[in-house]
């Protein structure tokens, strides 16, 4: 039989080309455009008033913009909350749902449900629920003995607590994704390991500690990576529920980019903020890859 060799250009490249074109058109070019705009001052109304300012936007962001630092801190709070709470709750629920339960698949679907609903809709619903006059959470929580938590809308008006209300909603939304990732990881563990452990007299807890958790090392990395990236680009919840307020207490980088770039007509400045967000996202991803060993062969 004759072997037919083909070059990359004539063969696989043709199959990759359509996706590559879309990728370049809708991601790479706008990204380059945004980075380019970051060196200009521009109101976004007419291309005739683009004014080159070099690194002035970056200088102002790092040296004269306290809201940027507040937003960055809030993003890091979301990242920390995503890693600690979202992934942990996702893992616990995934482990529980691995047991032989009657409605195991139904429960999996239910816990995953928030993740398939638009965050915009979730934001609108929680905005109504948390309304101090009309929201039901206030009365409902008080009646079931959770008096301390009976007024979450009061927390929303507290500059120190508001971000944690949004974080709680984000964790509720996102833990289903983490659970989904961990369930996939659990399915890939060789069941013979558990059989061997059972023969050796291991209890359920020991199986989890010595077999399950170590086997999920690669899965943690994926779950943490996804949770971190989503947390860095959080936008809908702060924008809809609090508009970044009170003051700028719940401002995140994405909402600050939107406000500066569109509402306050400082497109160049907004582009600079977006570029910084991109660099932070890439840096965090690099750190996660490095310290979790993701992508390395075994």
């Amino acid at each position, binding site marked *: 039989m004759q072997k037919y060799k083909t070059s990359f250009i004539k063969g696989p490249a043709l199959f990759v080309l359509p996706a590559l074109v879309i990728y370049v058109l809708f991601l790479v070019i706008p990204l380059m455009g945004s980075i380019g705009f970051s060196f200009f*001052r521009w*109101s*976004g*109304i*007419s*291309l*005739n*008033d683009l004014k080159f300012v070099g690194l002035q936007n970056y200088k102002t962001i790092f040296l004269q913009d306290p809201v940027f630092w507040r937003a960055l801190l809030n993003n890091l709070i979301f990242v920390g909350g995503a890693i600690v709470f979202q992934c942990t709750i996702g893992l616990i629920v995934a482990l529980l749902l691995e047991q032989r339960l009657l409605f195991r698949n139904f429960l999996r679907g239910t816990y995953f449900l928030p993740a398939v609903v638009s965050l915009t809709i979730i934001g609108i619903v929680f905005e109504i629920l*948390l*309304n*101090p*006059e*009309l929201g039901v959470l206030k009365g409902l929580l008080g009646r079931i003995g959770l008096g301390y938590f009976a007024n979450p*809308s*009061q927390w*929303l*008006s*507290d*500059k120190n607590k508001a971000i944690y209300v949004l974080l709680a909603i984000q964790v509720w939304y996102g833990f289903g994704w983490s659970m989904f990732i961990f369930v996939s990881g659990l399915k890939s563990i060789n069941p013979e390991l558990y059989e061997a452990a059972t023969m050796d007299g291991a209890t359920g807890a020991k199986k989890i500690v010595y077999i399950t958790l170590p086997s999920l090392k690669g899965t943690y990395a994926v779950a943490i990576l996804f949770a971190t990236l989503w947390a860095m680009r959080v936008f809908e919840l702060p924008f809809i529920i*609090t*508009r*970044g*307020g*009170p*003051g*700028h*207490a719940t401002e995140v980088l994405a909402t600050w980019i939107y*406000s500066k770039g*569109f*509402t*306050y*007509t*400082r497109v160049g400045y907004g582009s600079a903020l977006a570029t910084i967000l991109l660099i932070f996202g890439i840096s965090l991803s690099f750190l996660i890859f490095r310290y979790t060993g993701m992508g390395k062969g075994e």
Partner: protein
Amino acid sequence: MKRRLLGVTIICVLGISLMLGTSSLGAQEITLSFWDRETAVTGPATEALIAGFEKENPNIHIEWRKVPYDQYDDLAKMAYLVGEGPDLGSVCSMYTTWELLEKGCIMDLTDWYREYGDRFPLAADPYIKSPGGVYCTIPLAMHTMKHIFYNVEILENYGIAVPMNSWGEFLEACETLKNQGVTPATMGAKEYAPCEHWWQMFLTETVGAAEINSMLYRKYPDKGPRWTDPGWIRSLKYFLELFQRGYISKEAVTIGWASSILPFTTGKVAFFFDGSWLAGMLPPEFNWGFFEFPHIIGELGYTRNDGVVAYMSQVQVAATAPRDAAFKFLEYWTRPENQKVRWEKVKEIPATIGAVDPKEFDPYTRACVEFAETCTGSYPWISAVLPPEVGLDALGNGYGSLITGETTIPELSKKLEEVHQRVLREE
């Protein structure tokens, strides 16, 4: 065979040319795109007007697009940037409109006003002209911001008499209500409105319309009034006092305009302050009253009758729009008999002079019109005219910071002045 083929080809080409030519001989069909952000209130009136216009002008079709109010400015700016701005569009921020005019994105309407300008009073000028004196928008409604709305039943139950002759009396009434367990007032402070409306009234009292206009149209960093001047600082003190005394909950920072009206209309709150558009939005069965915003004894406004008389719901025309068709639509829309539809359908005072017989006005509308006629000084919406970084960011976010204690009045005033000076220098 070849000759036959040639003959058939020639006949086909002639036939196609004839068809194309015939189709272009008929009256030109024109479609005008119209982006409308006001549909929540004025939708029925606009629908009726468009239908009437299309009937009168069958070759002009209006493509009416309803755009959410708070997204309009951002969407419209992007559209104009890429040359896809609507032929006709609502105006949101005057500052944005002036920028669009300067950049050649919207049309100079001076020619239109030369013919139909006498339909509007002189008081409409700040809303229809740029600071450079170029006509750029057409107003459709007149609104005032001068009266506090109140729940009649609550005030009667607690023996509170209206009208109130001074701000001190209003505060006493709020104290009485608070002691009885009734929330005196509400406002939304998540966005800049309606909390800004309250603050504007205090500013009217402490500095007056003339100085407010000087600030709004300030061109030089080192000239004109300053945000740190005593009158400007005192206005913020009066504003903050409402929260410090517990007459308005600090949770106002978590609610927007639409949510803030509900406690008032559901009988949980006694007072609400907003512009005259609110009257058309209150449920028919809701028993409400009104009185003029009380003057503050000892302040400049006590001996004056300044306030906001605004010519709003403006429409602007894209520079690329079919001019004649657009002008025709604006002429139709601003005819007194057609503007009357606005009153009949949605109870908004039309901007066109003589559109409605004053005898048809209810007591509230009559009071608004009387105020407009006797007002000693007026100014436009502050956040709509100031550069966005000053009006929407520093000031708009400043209310929330002030209410939650994140910033103090002197700090906010200083920040406003610094930002305003920086923006003026950059411009």
